């Protein structure tokens, strides 16, 4: 998935370059909190680890294989900011020492594979963690779900970039269906490897998994008679009550399914590039339907599939904004009042 030179036009490459530079700059500042001053050797070794696991290939259907992107895995293991930093370094080294990924496309590659995978993977991981019981083991399904969704998220952002700065007049609807289809499959492979890897680390060194750091098991004290009693530790929980969490997650899931998958099927032509290439009759009709100016016209309004993508992005953005507003509100008002209100 390393984008080569000349795939996107110069404006798009520059724009993604600015995004990448900003994200890396922020990550340089913020990763201090995750790794303190041990940053350089640990982040470097983590980057080497990501480079190594990216060599893991897994089969996706007939004759195609995907490789691990590792963004969600890195975020769960070392924290999101360090993950952005590590994956970016991996991409720089791959571009310069291995000629993998174009130099002018470096910004695009960092935006896609370091920023979007980590951001999407981490957001989903946190969301899933907030509903699961507070045990270190909960990190495994959370990280797997994050990895599962991070890959189609990258595909979706890639499509948006391609619609803006791609050089060909590809029918975006067909391209979307095919890209999201394949990348959902790749996402399943990514989810399996990520979940199992995080599971293996949690089993041995739960303290190393960043996402599980606040999920320490309760401290037990052995009594003289041999029974175990929880130690009297003052528990401070700042998580919202369980019932609210359930509503939040079920609601989010329903919204995402409606926005993404249901509208996806509304298209009626969700087959891959090959099918379309073979079926010229369909292309003739599709052309009439899809000849609009995709590159600059409103992306969400053409065809049905882009609506699905726009829907998912819209839902995610809305949730993000909602959380921000709620957090702001919680900070403004008295915390007790707010809790009572949200029940």
């Amino acid at each position, binding site marked *: *998935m*390393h*984008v*080569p*030179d*000349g*795939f996107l036009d*110069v404006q798009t490459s520059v724009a993604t370059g600015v995004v990448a530079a900003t994200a890396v700059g922020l990550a*340089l500042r913020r990763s201090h909190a995750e790794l303190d*001053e*041990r*940053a*350089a*050797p*640990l*982040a*470097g*070794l*983590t*980057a*080497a680890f990501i*480079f*190594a*696991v990216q060599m*893991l290939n*897994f*089969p996706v259907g007939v004759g195609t294989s995907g490789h691990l992107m590792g963004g969600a895995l890195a975020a769960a293991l070392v924290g999101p900011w360090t993950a952005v*930093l590590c994956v970016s*370094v*991996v991409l*720089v080294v791959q571009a*310069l*020492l*291995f*000629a993998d990924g*174009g*130099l*002018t496309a470096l910004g695009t590659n960092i935006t896609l594979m370091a920023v979007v995978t980590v951001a999407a993977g981490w957001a989903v991981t946190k969301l899933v963690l907030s509903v699961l019981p507070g045990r270190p083991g909960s990190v495994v399904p959370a990280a797997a779900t994050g990895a599962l969704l991070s890959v189609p998220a990258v595909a979706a952002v890639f499509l948006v970039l391609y619609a803006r700065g*791609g*050089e*060909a*007049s*590809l*029918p975006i609807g*067909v391209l979307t269906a095919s890209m999201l289809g394949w990348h959902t499959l790749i996402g399943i492979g990514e989810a*399996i490897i990520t979940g*199992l*890897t995080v*599971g*293996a*680390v949690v089993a*041995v*060194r739960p303290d*190393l998994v960043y996402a599980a750091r606040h999920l320490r098991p309760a401290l037990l004290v052995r009594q003289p008679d041999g029974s175990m009693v929880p130690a009297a530790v003052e528990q401070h929980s700042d998580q919202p009550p369980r019932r609210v969490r359930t509503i939040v997650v079920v609601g989010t899931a329903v919204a995402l399914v409606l926005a993404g998958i249901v509208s996806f099927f509304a298209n009626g032509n969700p087959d891959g*590039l*090959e099918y*379309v*290439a073979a079926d010229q009759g369909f292309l003739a009709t599709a*052309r009439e339907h*899809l000849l609009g100016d995709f590159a600059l016209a409103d992306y969400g309004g053409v065809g049905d599939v882009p609506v699905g993508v726009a829907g998912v992005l819209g839902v995610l953005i809305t949730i993000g904004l909602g959380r921000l507003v709620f957090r702001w509100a919680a900070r403004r008002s008295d915390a007790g009042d707010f809790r009572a209100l949200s029940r």
Partner: protein
Amino acid sequence: MAGGHAHLLYRHGDSVVHQLPAHVKLVSLLGFVLVVVATPAESYWAFGVYAALLAAAALVAGIPGDFVLRRMVVEIPFVVFAALMPFVSTGERIDVLGLSLSESGLVSAWSLLAKGTLGVVASILLAATTDARDLLVGLQRLRLPARMVEIASFMVRYLDVVAGEMHRMRVARESRGFQARHLGHLRAVAHGAGALFIRTYERGERVHLAMLSRGYAGSLPLSDAGPASATAWTRALLLPGVAFAVALAGGVWV
């Protein structure tokens, strides 16, 4: 690790290109690729000139053609993508050898292949003539944040160690009869990856402690040969300079 920090693509030599400072080569590469990317796909001859320039650079650097060709496999996924374009693109259709192809799709497939290939070959030439350590010093001279360069230098230094560890794990699995045949087998592989992460992270902690005990105070000393001479700049900028001049003279952007 026997080969020091020599990496996969580096090819030892002492040609003019090898001796150029890394940051000069990086600027030269970036300039060249920018000219290539900004050239419209319809200027077919210009891409021929760019390819000839790269061939000349490879000749001067003493990099054989088959070395470059073998490394070009990284491009394959996008070659497949480019090959599909003429079939699925919209727009005017023309008949080529009995197939109905999209004209704009053909042009974009050509553009993708030409620009992508030139970019990959140029990057291969940089990687083949520049030592990993020199490249890191070059990145620092180009004002990449010092911490980023440090992280990259640790990554490059330990890449062989980590990859070697992963390779040994694979040998261990396979010598016990393991063969990855379906998705269920990912379990064994992923457990290996988990163990690899723990070993890697713990190695990082040990490396950090070792550095502290030797007086590490937050930044690494990176030796630097100093600014590049004017001759070096002139030589390195010959590649993007000529490419730009040819494109300009040929009226590519008119």
